[in-house]
């Protein structure tokens, strides 16, 4: 059951790949002389053309006061506002009679990084951070306790400012 195959007759100059290959190589090599746009992550994390936005909402950071204590007063607004229900807070009282969090834990897996916790905080204590490198070797490390939140050093998010909606 032979199949009739129609064979086209074309000149060799049209069927050769040589010309197309050379054209492609010319384009490729021409890029050597053009400006570089690739960033060498992770060696390079920002360039003069691109930096991460100051409004980036990444993993959290708890700010501390002059004595190094967390600014949090355990008012309970962030667990209340949190749409993902990822903040665990147990309030207590320290030796000076100040209200402070006995337990403050954020489950970064559950967190949806909306930034409401930062927005609602009356003490400007909890912040979402300008930070995106969060990998760990075990799942339980993703529940950040108070000590770990205070030890974070990355910059904090400026969030979106309604009076400056384009961030200029």
């Amino acid at each position, binding site marked *: 059951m032979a199949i009739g195959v129609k064979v086209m007759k074309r000149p060799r100059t049209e069927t050769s790949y040589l010309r197309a290959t050379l054209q492609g190589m010319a384009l490729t090599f021409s890029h050597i002389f053009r400006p570089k746009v690739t960033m060498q992550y992770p060696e390079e994390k920002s360039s003069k053309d691109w930096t991460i936005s100051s409004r980036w909402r990444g993993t959290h950071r708890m700010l501390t006061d002059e004595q190094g204590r967390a600014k949090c007063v*355990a*008012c309970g607004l962030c667990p*209340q506002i949190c749409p993902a229900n990822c903040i665990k807070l147990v*309030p207590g*009282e320290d030796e000076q*009679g100040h*209200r402070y969090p006995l337990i403050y834990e954020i489950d970064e897996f559950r967190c949806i990084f909306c930034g409401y916790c930062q927005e609602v905080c009356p003490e400007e204590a909890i912040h979402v951070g300008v930070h995106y490198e969060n990998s760990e070797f075990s799942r339980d490390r993703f529940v950040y306790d108070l000590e770990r939140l205070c030890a974070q050093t990355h910059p904090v998010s400026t969030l979106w400012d309604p009076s400056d909606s384009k961030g200029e």
Partner: protein
Amino acid sequence: MADGLITLTIDGVPVHVPSGTLVIEAAKQAGVLVPHYCYHPGLPVAGVCRMCLVEVEKQPKLAIACATPVAEGMVVRTQSAPAKRARTSVLEFLLINHPLDCPICDQAGECELQDFTFQEGRPGTRYSPDYPKRFNPVEDFGPDILYVPNRCILCTRCVRFMEDVAQEPVLNVSERGDRAFIGIHPQGRLDHPWAGNVVDLCPVGSLLSKDFLHKARAWELDRTASICTGCSQGCNVTLDTRDDVVVRVRPRQNLEVNRYFICDHGRANYRWMNRGDRVEAPLVKQAGSEGYRAVDWDEALDRVRIIVGGASGKAVAFASPRAATEALFLARHLLGGFDWTGAFQLVMGDEEPLAGVPNLALRAERAPNVHGAELLGYTRDMSAALQAAEQSAVVFVLDDPQVSVRTAGAVIYLGTVMPEADGATPDVILPITNVAEEEGTFVNRDGRVQRYFQAKPAPGMARPAWWVLGELLEGTGNGARGMPLACAADVFDLMAESMEAFGGLSYAKLGLVGRTLGQGAGVPA
């Protein structure tokens, strides 16, 4: 209109109230809550906060609604521009020295200053942030009360409560003008047995309960109507739970019983509701050994049915007067075929009256259902019941009374925790719920039947005592009716049918404030 009623108009709504009613109370009938701080229906009128200013037509100046009695044809405007402007100004004055510490204040979320400022306060302050606010350190007023003078708005509710209701005047307003604060007698302490009410009365977070301090925020609490189990007065309370843990007991208004107050004994009497060492599964005694085996309900109930069905002669029920009327009723109903004795164990204490309210006291009988138990034929005579138990075939122990039973018969123990007292080891232990985990009724010392509601889930397999006894009743055929007892209301209906004293009552009729039993004594049907 009916005789003795005065008609007036509040915000365009005509209301009919008895002569002598205050405008603020009449406004509530019109559906208007006039903002107020010093006024409280349970206290004498002081008129010091000036917050409830309203406009009364044909009066030259604004009037305070809390001290103005109604008059025929009066036209009151609570939302007119001058009235609102005046109240906004009063709030501005109150907030001059009020700290902005709502995040750490226990009252936040249930604070009247927050509410009314949100409702009609100024959006911003006109005072410079450099202007220092008045500062006074926190004072320790009593065993359970802290005073934070900075937050105080000097409504004097606490002063009037101690003076006129508790009638132990240890508080006053010290100093004058903007230096004024609530002072305590130099040798005095706020340790009156009813002093805890000042914490509830305080409209702001100035008087705080040490017990509740920093424990929970107001918006995290779930509130459940309940009855205090502290004594036979039967005060109406609200159980505040957070994550299924009872964290606070507050008074619930019932003008017939406790008005707006509860005593400190009742206020602190909630920790046992959160006990962690509960029996969580039905346990039956292993044949030939001392130990128990955890079984499912069907097996445990079958075991009890065999024991009860095969026995005859004497039976004794030991109960605690903390058990619901429904459970007490079903226990005696279940033992109807026996020569029955019922007894309950009663803890006695000192009677602590609240001087300013008639017929309100922390009663000597420290259990909520003494009257109900007696109505159902249980007696306080434990010794006679213990004697009867020695020759009885079946002994029921209901709701953890501390008795050491000596008996030749079988012991069936319905309790929340493992039996602590020595004596005969129970053949079957059935886990039941406590007052915070079930629905039921108590009968207080004046014969008032009052309902309480479920505030949190029961641990493990624990079930309400009425359910356990109702299931047993089905099997033994002791007066079981055609329908299964599906809820506590069914048990109450069965009780209303068979007990003359409860006749005509139902859960729907009891409602949230309860009903007093008819004058007829508790004659068993």
